[in-house]
């Protein structure tokens, strides 16, 4: 792309990192199309691994995320999986969280610079991915242990059943596609938390999707599809907010978008062939591996901030190990999705064939 006379917080791009971003975008899109979110939690560290500062990585990520989410939401709406009303209500609450979260990000970048911003983003990553990923992993393990992984209809959690039973006059809302009736007052804090997280680490979905599943009692397929509506609305708000500060690297956004639009279409198609527990499995596996990858990188940021003192060789090793873990998360996630999709596709073809051959 030649020599660039650009602001110091933007990196120079070459053939290898363009190809890398395209491929990461594709797998990120595949994951997003499948579980409603999650591409971003791989894409932000991927950009950071190329030397992009945390805030520019998040800004560029959010800027590519909302149009990608729009494409995914349209696709999954055709499959009858999107609850637009729930998505818009969550998104309205999330908008408040996005503006608040983006403001904190900007202040951190101004006060502590590149390393401080990266440390802040990584710490948030680790906390959220471990807590939520651990919870989802536990649920997947329970489903496998009890043999309920083959069930198409999921049973709402005890918390969700209690929340659905609480009647607060004047605040009750019914969501037709999600098939739940809950008070708006329960949705509000979930939406705000989703928005804050999205603006901080660009992956609000890792609060939003589990919250809809475990707190509101929404089916995994509907929750992951509805998350795309939330991602679109708050992603657009977040992108405008970051663009106002001139932090969006449009080149990164467009290169990732090129790959992720291929991925999101494929991921959305994949949801029509799999059992709901696969969505949770993919979420849990990727979240936990990426959390470990960010932990490995944290000592480097602490060294850059003069809190720790590591040898350059050690820092290089940690950086490489973190990067390898992230690639591993990507590959395992993609492998599970494509494997489940191929299996589902094959079974469906066989059942169609059997139906054709069956006597009238």
């Amino acid at each position, binding site marked *: 792309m030649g020599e660039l006379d650009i*602001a110091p917080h933007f990196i120079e791009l070459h053939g290898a990192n363009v190809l890398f971003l395209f491929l990461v975008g594709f797998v990120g899109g595949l994951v997003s199309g499948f579980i409603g979110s999650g591409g971003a939690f791989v894409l932000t560290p991927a950009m950071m691994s190329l030397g992009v500062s945390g805030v520019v990585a998040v800004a560029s990520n959010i800027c590519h995320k909302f149009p990608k989410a729009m494409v995914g939401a349209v696709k999954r709406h055709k499959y009858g999986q999107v609850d637009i009303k729930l998505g818009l209500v969550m998104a309205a609450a999330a908008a408040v969280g996005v503006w608040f979260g983006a403001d904190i990000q900007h202040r951190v970048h101004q006060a502590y610079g590149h390393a401080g911003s990266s440390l802040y983003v990584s710490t948030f990553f680790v906390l959220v991915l471990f807590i939520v990923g651990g919870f989802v992993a536990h649920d997947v393990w329970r489903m496998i242990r009890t043999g309920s992984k083959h069930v198409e209809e999921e049973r709402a959690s005890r918390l969700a059943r209690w929340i659905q039973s609480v009647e607060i006059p004047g605040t009750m809302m019914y969501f037709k596609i999600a098939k739940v009736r809950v008070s708006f007052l329960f949705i509000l804090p979930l939406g705000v938390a989703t928005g804050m997280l999205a603006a901080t680490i660009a992956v609000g979905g890792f609060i939003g999707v589990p919250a809809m599943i475990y707190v509101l009692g929404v089916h995994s397929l509907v929750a992951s599809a509805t998350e795309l509506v939330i991602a679109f609305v708050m992603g657009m708000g977040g992108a405008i907010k970051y663009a106002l500060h001139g932090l969006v690297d449009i080149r990164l956004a467009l290169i990732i978008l090129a790959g992720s*639009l291929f991925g999101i279409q494929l991921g959305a*198609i994949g949801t029509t062939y799999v059992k709901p527990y696969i969505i949770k499995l993919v979420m849990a596996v990727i979240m936990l591996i990426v959390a470990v990858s960010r932990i490995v990188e944290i000592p480097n940021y602490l060294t850059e901030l003069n809190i720790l003192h590591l040898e350059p060789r050690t820092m290089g090793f940690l950086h490489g190990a973190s990067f390898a873990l992230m690639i591993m998360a990507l590959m395992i996630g993609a492998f599970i999705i494509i494997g489940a999709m191929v299996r*589902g596709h094959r079974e469906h073809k066989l059942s169609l064939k059997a139906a054709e051959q069956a006597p009238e």
Partner: protein
Amino acid sequence: MWLIGRQMNRRLKADPELRRRFFLFGLSSIALYTLFFLYSQELLVISSRTDGAYFLLPVVIVLLFSFVHGGFTNYFWRALGVRSKMAMGKR
């Protein structure tokens, strides 16, 4: 790769509407990305400006790309025969 290309070609030949849309969106997408790579430096400088309404530029650009390239990726998978369970059932 050759087999995939042959399958794709067969589907595009069999479905004129798919073929028209595949090439319309595909060529438009190539044109947009060619322009982007040729003028990426200028695009970055303009889109990171914070004065006036320049902040809207990144949003408008990504929406335009997602419409054109998103349309192409949809027809790309269809041409490859990768379709949803519901679409497979209707076939």
